[in-house]
């Protein structure tokens, strides 16, 4: 057990699997699979496994994903890291091929592949294409791929291990805003399931549900609300698809109040699915959603920071819902 950055923890999981499986491939574009961490050996997949297995490509994310899929179909485990700028380029390959091939072939196609899709760090100042946080919605509607989004270094490593061991295609959403988070992470390989939400805090007055890059602000808001005397249950979805309905329903069955939070745009963000699933299963509850407005992120930090959901927005919404 050592303090590790998210980045390092994830690459540890990848390195372990690549050592186990001499055929496994890693495809990247600009983000070299290199990480260092105080007190630990530098991980450099490119030098350790050579350019035969670690492939640096041109700017063609469609190819990266298609090639990863093709490697899987040929019986080799493969994963690719798509930088956020290219995160929608391979959409059709995942939607129409990775997501459908197993079913369309009656179970015959094998696809032990992981698509690591970086999401922007939502850094102020970069605008539109470089500050959005929207691909969670697009990828979670696709049947036949598992779409997950960890929010802690521990989950990131464990879910990467699980994803690489899963025989199904996994879209592993990777919020760039979290990659410098540091936490205690075990040195050995371990699994975190790809279909279970995590209850991060238990409470009875209100359930707050979010995912990925939204979690740090939710936890901050929960602290503020607790200080106010509110008993808040906090759930991190972790897996967007399949979504863990049971955990959500059990929680709101108890609190009768659900605040669902998205970093992406309001309309048809993951929070819509959260609210809908609970509304179908819990009678007499009250619901609220907050999210980024249905607008692209503007460059100006003044505009952007006002629009992006933060701990104050969350705490205010919670107070309105409970009060």
């Amino acid at each position, binding site marked *: 057990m050592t303090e590790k950055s998210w980045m390092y923890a994830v690459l540890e999981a990848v390195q372990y699997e690549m050592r186990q499986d001499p055929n496994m*491939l890693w495809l990247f574009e600009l983000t070299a699979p290199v990480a260092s961490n105080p007190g630990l050996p530098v991980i450099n997949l490119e030098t350790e496994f050579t350019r*035969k297995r670690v492939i640096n490509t041109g700017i063609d994310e469609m190819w990266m994903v298609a*090639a990863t899929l093709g490697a899987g179909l040929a*019986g080799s485990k493969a994963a690719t890291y798509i930088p956020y700028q290219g995160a929608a380029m391979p959409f059709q390959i995942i939607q*129409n091929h990775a997501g459908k*091939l*197993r079913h369309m072939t*009656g179970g015959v196609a094998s696809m032990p592949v992981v698509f690591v899709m970086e999401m922007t760090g939502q850094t102020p100042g970069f605008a539109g294409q470089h500050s959005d946080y929207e691909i969670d919605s697009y990828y979670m509607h696709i049947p036949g791929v598992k779409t997950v989004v960890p929010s802690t270094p521990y989950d990131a490593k464990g879910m990467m291990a699980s994803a690489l061991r899963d025989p199904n295609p996994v879209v592993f959403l990777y919020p760039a805003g979290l990659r410098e988070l540091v936490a205690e992470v075990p040195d050995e390989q371990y699994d975190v399931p790809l279909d279970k939400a995590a209850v991060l805090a238990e409470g009875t007055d209100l359930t707050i549900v979010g995912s990925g890059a939204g979690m740090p602000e939710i936890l901050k808001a929960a602290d503020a609300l607790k200080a106010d005397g509110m008993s808040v249950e906090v759930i991190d979805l972790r897996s967007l698809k399949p979504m863990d309905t049971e955990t959500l329903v059990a929680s709101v069955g108890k609190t009768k109040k659900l605040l669902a939070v998205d970093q992406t745009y309001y309309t048809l963000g993951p929070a819509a699915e959260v609210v809908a699933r609970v509304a179908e299963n819990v009678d007499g509850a009250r619901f609220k959603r907050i999210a980024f407005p249905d607008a692209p992120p503007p460059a100006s930090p003044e505009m952007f920071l006002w629009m992006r959901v933060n701990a104050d927005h969350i705490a205010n919404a919670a107070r309105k819902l409970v009060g």
Partner: protein
Amino acid sequence: MHRETDTDCQSSEPGFSPGRRTFLKISVLAGAAATISSTVAYAAGESGFWAKDLEDEQLVDMYRRILRIRWHERTMADKMLTDPTYRGYNHFYAGQEAVAVGICSALRNEGGVEKADLVYSTHRPTGHAIAKGIDLKRMCAENDFRATGLNNGYAAEMHISDPTIGFMGADGMIGPGPVIATGSALAIQARGSGQVVVNFGGDGTYATPHFHSALNNSTLLKLPFIYVIENNLYHQYAHYSLSVPMKDIATAAEPYGIPGIVVDGQDVMQVYNAAKIAVDRARAGEGPTLIEAKTYRYYNHWGAPGATPGELGAFGYDPLAISSFRPERELRAWMQRDPVDISRRILIDWGLLDDAEADAIETEVKAEVTEAFAWAAEQPLCRPEDGLKHVFVDGEVEARQLA
């Protein structure tokens, strides 16, 4: 944009096939492919005529597979035209048989995805599948939506696949197939398993953005990848000149610095020869090859509109074809260089078969095809609830249509 109808293949003498020895000489002198196009630098003839080295048995088997495709086509067309209870369909391949068989004859067709050479097919897959050695009965059952079909009734014609023979499957989308195929080639290169990946694609695939991606990345990484363009002059209802600015798509290989071979797609021996050159190159780690086979399909884009039961080809116009018709004379001219006739004449000419033996093979194949369709028709239909399976390796998804 050139708009003249491409008639190069038709200008050769119909069905002409010289004796084995003469043939060898011609191909060595002029290059087998060079009779088709002189603009392409890398003519098959440069490397000798490899079909001569095939075992007699293999050569006869090529003929048999061509016939198997042809009779599968004709039987299917007749069923679609005459049996209103038959629900199967096909994107017919008749006319192009020599391409699939010539290519697959240069491949390893056994051992699963880890040993066999891998073939990626298109929305027009049954010819490729048969050439690769698919189980005909189970394919017919699949195309008839049967639970015991090759893919348990989930796939039907446009998605049939059988990785055990390296037939990686049909794909209903135009574009992504070749790019996915390069990924298989990448895996093969990394693990050193010595396999080769072949992607079939129509002339229609040239215009897709994916075309560049497949050629560029396979070139950069020197992948064991062969892109076979079956240029049958039309993509759906449009002549290829509407989407291709050059006469020979093979010339698109030039800037990448990889060979682009134009080959007569009606002559299975010439196709085999081109394939052999590309396969040897790929296995030697020298990288990809683009092969363009000039060919023609005898039916319309999809199904059998315009066709007559018992007759080969669809001469009636396709009612769906609004902007671009295939002229009947063009079709008839191509049929004069029929791949079945050409392969039969070569084998007879080379002294491998006589007419009676060739006929006997045809009779056998017909019976085999008839039996496959009959077997398929007796297979059980799918259970509705099974639609919830095979989304993931384990388990089922929920029946959300039910409250």
